[in-house]
């Protein structure tokens, strides 16, 4: 393999981003090539430098924090004004959703119980009105 064939792969080689068979070919060439070894040193330096970039913060423009807070408040006033509850409204919604079958069953039982109670009340009331009046 010649350098011009290998060089397009060097930026991937330094990052370990090549397939293993391709990396083997590149490694074999680099082992005998001073020029490509120097290129790898240069690319390694790029990677090392970029890894340091992450730890650096770019100073945001003055007023960005206020702009973010103002914009979110504008778009979500309901949530800003929401009272503090002992649970999140989202949690309640999720709870209801997760237990919808149980809730539906309980509601069904309640309806049946209410119907039975009403029928019983009617029956008792009917029997009382059917009794002869006593003086």
């Amino acid at each position: 393999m010649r350098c011009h064939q290998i060089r397009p792969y060097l930026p991937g080689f330094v990052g370990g981003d090549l397939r293993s068979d391709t990396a083997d070919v590149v490694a074999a060439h680099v082992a005998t090539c001073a020029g490509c070894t120097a290129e790898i040193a240069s690319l390694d330096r790029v990677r090392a430098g970029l890894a340091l970039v992450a730890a650096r913060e770019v100073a945001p423009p003055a007023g960005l924090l206020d702009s973010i807070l103002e914009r979110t408040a504008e778009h979500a006033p309901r949530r800003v004004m929401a009272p503090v509850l002992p649970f999140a409204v989202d949690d309640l919604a999720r709870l209801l959703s997760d237990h919808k079958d149980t809730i539906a069953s309980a509601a069904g039982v309640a309806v049946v119980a209410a119907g039975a109670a009403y029928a019983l009340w009617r029956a008792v009331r009917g029997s009382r009105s059917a009794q002869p009046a006593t003086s």
Partner: protein
Amino acid sequence: MQVPQQLVESVRRGEPGAFEELVKSTHRSVYSLVYRIVGNAEDAADVTQDVYLRVWRGLRGFRGDANFSTWLYRVAANAALTHVKRRARGGIPTEPSELPDLPAGDGAEERADAELLERALETLPDSQRAVVVLKDVYGWTCEEIGKQMGTTEGAVKVRLFRARQRLADELASAGVVVPMKKRKKTS
């Protein structure tokens, strides 16, 4: 950037001041990531505002299975990439802005490289810059980047390799490393 889980829960519960505290403690890191992808301060400020709007709305769906910081970075990267795509469709050129001064630290050579590279990133085409920032600065995998950008892992690698090569050329132009053209040709 580490965000305490308790703070995230406080925000989800709508506790007064919690969201403000969250923004205060994270907006610099988020702005830095966005800036590095979009390449200029004005766009980065707009996109960062969008990010927190998405966070505000999306916190409902954030169940806490994932690390909040990881999720926040994903939201930020997604917003920045969307902006870059939209800008590319609109044919609006990137206007590199002057990079703010950065605080000094130890390790002069590495610091100098990092500073040079940070500036050199601005000269890359949008698609290359986004890929190399996410991969080599923030440690994403090519697969993750591909998914986020809606492209293949192979296409990501092509952009990544070109970006690294261009950055190496920038270091060479600055005299930090020996330029390729001056190196002895070997085969």
